[in-house]
């Protein structure tokens, strides 16, 4: 690679010639503050926090978009630079809702952190505040523009990463507001509730709809039998909220923590992930052998489902009719489990801990009442669980290892890998292979579908049947795969799609990393690594070997795709409008 040499703060620095000054400085261990910058997503030089002096330039330059050049002399820390950054920051703060101690992002806010780092101790520019919008009509995402700093990280994420594009800067100048068209609510436009905008927000302008109150209330109600399920991806992310490294595994801390919060039974969504594989694997074989609609596309990700309903309704028949593991679990708790234990299902309060904001929407869908009640009463994000634990004074690090309750806490490694992109595909292949061949699968690691590459393709030989599979994560990658199918460029049999980059480990309900942390390490890779470690260490790693799933079929369901399965575990989809009804 062609390198150039420049001087930053008197230090000679070598950098590739297509690098920016920000990148070159970072590499040399020189920190330039940023705010609107989000590596690979939003690199637009808008906030002017990264200004530097460049010899020969008339004015201060924004380092995040300034290409390096040979012989360039950069000063990142002059009086003029410091004053400029400070003024900019004070101006941002002068139009910011400063309710910091009660803000959801208190102590995890990039604006707050910068104020501290740049030594801003007073705001010299009191003045008019722009008109704010507070939108909490979406079941998943709350917008509070009184805290918005117009960095556009959410906009870039929504448009570029997710190719959804329902928020933009509306109006101009002081009136600019990041909002959907006509300043509508996110609930009125074709938002898919993925929550990736929240993950990109440096401040508290975007947050999940908080449902912790409902759970506290249920826990305090002696009449209620409160059951919780935890998604695969929580066990490799919750630890980060308690000071753990990226991808710290806390599988055995989870049951202890949830019991201390007062849940009557602590179960595992990995169980119903295994169940999903039995149903979906059977569905795939049925479609393959009986001329059903192919490619079959996975249906675990509610953000993806809503995306498909709005943007690719022509693929609705390709979607697996399987409910997501969360919803399969919910339907079983208030039927199978209630019957088995002799509990009145109306007394059961069913909570899920999910890495996902779209799950909040999913559990309210009208199709998700197949037990006769709302199958899952409340879906909490990883962040909400973390807040509840902290409020209760429970420190994950001080807890003993405990096990999930039986039988709905029994799972295999195949269920665990649902948490990473490619995991559902891999779990399905492990099971489908053995069902078809009736032979033991020796090497169960399908590494070709693992990893953070946006679109992964493979051809798997199942006893002579060549199965073409594709895996996409992040909705812009989903478009790539779907367009290939549409244009006849690919002949897939089975596709896995997850709405969020990295799959559930990168879900919109996960711990929020700041821009620096996201730059330093790939959180998707680190958490996925942990997920595969969880899988490796499980005694059973194929869904069809899960003893609790086997007894569920024996005692209750009968067989995969049977009548009861059909009623409780499968669903249907609805074509949705692309544009809001404003006429």
């Amino acid at each position: 690679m062609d390198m150039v040499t420049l001087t930053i703060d008197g230090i000679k620095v070598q950098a590739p010639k297509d690098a920016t000054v920000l990148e070159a400085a970072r590499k040399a261990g020189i920190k330039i503050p940023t705010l609107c910058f989000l590596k690979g997503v939003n690199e637009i030089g808008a906030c002017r926090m990264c200004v530097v002096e460049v010899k020969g330039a008339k004015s201060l330059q924004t380092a995040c978009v300034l290409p390096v050049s040979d012989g360039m002399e950069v000063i990142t820390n002059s009086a003029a630079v410091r004053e400029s950054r400070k003024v900019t920051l004070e101006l941002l703060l002068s139009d910011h809702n400063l309710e910091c101690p009660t803000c959801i992002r208190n102590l995890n806010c990039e604006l707050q952190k910068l104020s501290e780092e740049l030594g801003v101790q007073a705001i010299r520019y009191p003045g008019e505040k722009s008109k704010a919008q507070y939108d909490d009509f979406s079941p998943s995402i709350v917008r509070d523009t009184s805290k918005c700093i117009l960095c556009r990280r959410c906009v870039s994420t929504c448009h570029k990463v997710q190719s959804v594009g329902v928020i933009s800067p509306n109006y101009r100048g002081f009136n600019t507001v990041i909002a959907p068209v006509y300043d509508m609510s996110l609930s009125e436009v074709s938002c898919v509730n993925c929550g990736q905008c929240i993950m990109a927000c440096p401040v508290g302008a975007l947050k999940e709809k908080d449902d912790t109150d409902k759970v506290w209330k249920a826990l305090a109600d002696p009449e209620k039998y409160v059951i919780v399920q935890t998604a695969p991806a929580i066990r490799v992310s919750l630890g980060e909220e308690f000071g753990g490294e990226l991808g710290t595994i806390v599988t055995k801390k989870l049951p202890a923590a949830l019991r201390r919060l007062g849940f009557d039974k602590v179960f595992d969504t990995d169980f119903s992930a295994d169940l999903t594989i039995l149903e979906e694997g059977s569905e795939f074989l049925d479609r393959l052998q009986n001329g059903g609609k192919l490619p079959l596309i996975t249906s675990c990700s509610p953000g993806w489902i809503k995306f498909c309903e709005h943007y690719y309704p022509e693929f609705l028949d390709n979607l697996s009719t399987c409910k997501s593991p969360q919803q399969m679990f919910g339907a079983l708790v208030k039927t199978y489990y209630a019957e088995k234990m002799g509990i009145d299902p109306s007394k059961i309060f069913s909570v899920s801990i999910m890495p996902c904001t779209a799950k909040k929407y999913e559990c309210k869908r009208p199709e998700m009442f197949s037990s006769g009640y709302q199958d899952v009463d409340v879906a909490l994000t990883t962040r909400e669980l973390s807040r509840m634990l902290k409020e209760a004074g429970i420190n994950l690090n001080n807890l003993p290892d405990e096990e999930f309750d039986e039988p709905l806490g029994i799972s295999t490694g195949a269920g665990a890998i649902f948490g990473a992109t490619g995991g559902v595909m891999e779990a399905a292949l492990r099971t489908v292979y053995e069902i078809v061949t009736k032979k033991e699968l020796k090497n169960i690691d399908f590494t070709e579908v693992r990893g953070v590459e946006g679109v992964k393709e493979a051809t798997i030989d199942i006893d002579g049947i060549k199965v073409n599979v594709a895996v996409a994560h992040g909705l812009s990658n989903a478009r790539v795969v779907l367009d290939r199918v549409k244009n006849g460029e690919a002949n897939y049999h089975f596709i896995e799609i997850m709405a969020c980059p990295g799959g559930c480990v990168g879900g919109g309900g996960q711990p929020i990393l700041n821009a620096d942390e996201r730059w330093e390490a790939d959180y998707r890779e680190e958490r996925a690594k942990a997920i595969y470690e969880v899988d490796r260490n499980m005694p059973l790693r194929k869904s069809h070997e899960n003893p609790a799933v086997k007894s569920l079929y024996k005692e209750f369901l009968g067989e995969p795709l049977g009548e009861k399965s059909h009623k409780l575990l499968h669903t249907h989809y609805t074509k949705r409008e692309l544009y809001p009804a404003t006429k």
Partner: protein
Amino acid sequence: MAVALNQQQEFTAKLKQIEEMLKKYKGQKGALLQALQEAQNIMGYLPIEVQEMVAETLDITLSEVYSTITFYSFFSLKPKGKYQIRTCLGTACYVRGAEKILDRLKTELGIEVGDTTDDGKFSLNACRCIGACGLAPAIIINDEVYGRLTPDKIPDILKKFE
């Protein structure tokens, strides 16, 4: 009733016209400004129906279309009046009292900036420099410039359009 029906027919006809016009921009993401300008020339403003058509033809999001329309004061989301008044708020006009002119226009017409009178006659907008600084403060009604204004000259000017 008959009037309403006529308006509806006219609206539909103009939509059709815009649809035809947009064909040449199919898939051209970069053509947004031209497309919007031509569409507004046909319809007089840019209702949601037109925005959706533009988004679909150019293969961009509705949000981006709306964002662009609301950024430029030239574009309008609401039907415009028969006579479009644009008040220059450029530097020269501003320092010579453009704000007072604008305030008087608002009181005389009983509308805010960006709105149209109920009879559909006048719409009022503010704009950046119109290049008539020598005549500051100035306004434009349709294509005609009225300069060296004082608030008291406003009623007489409006009367010309009665």
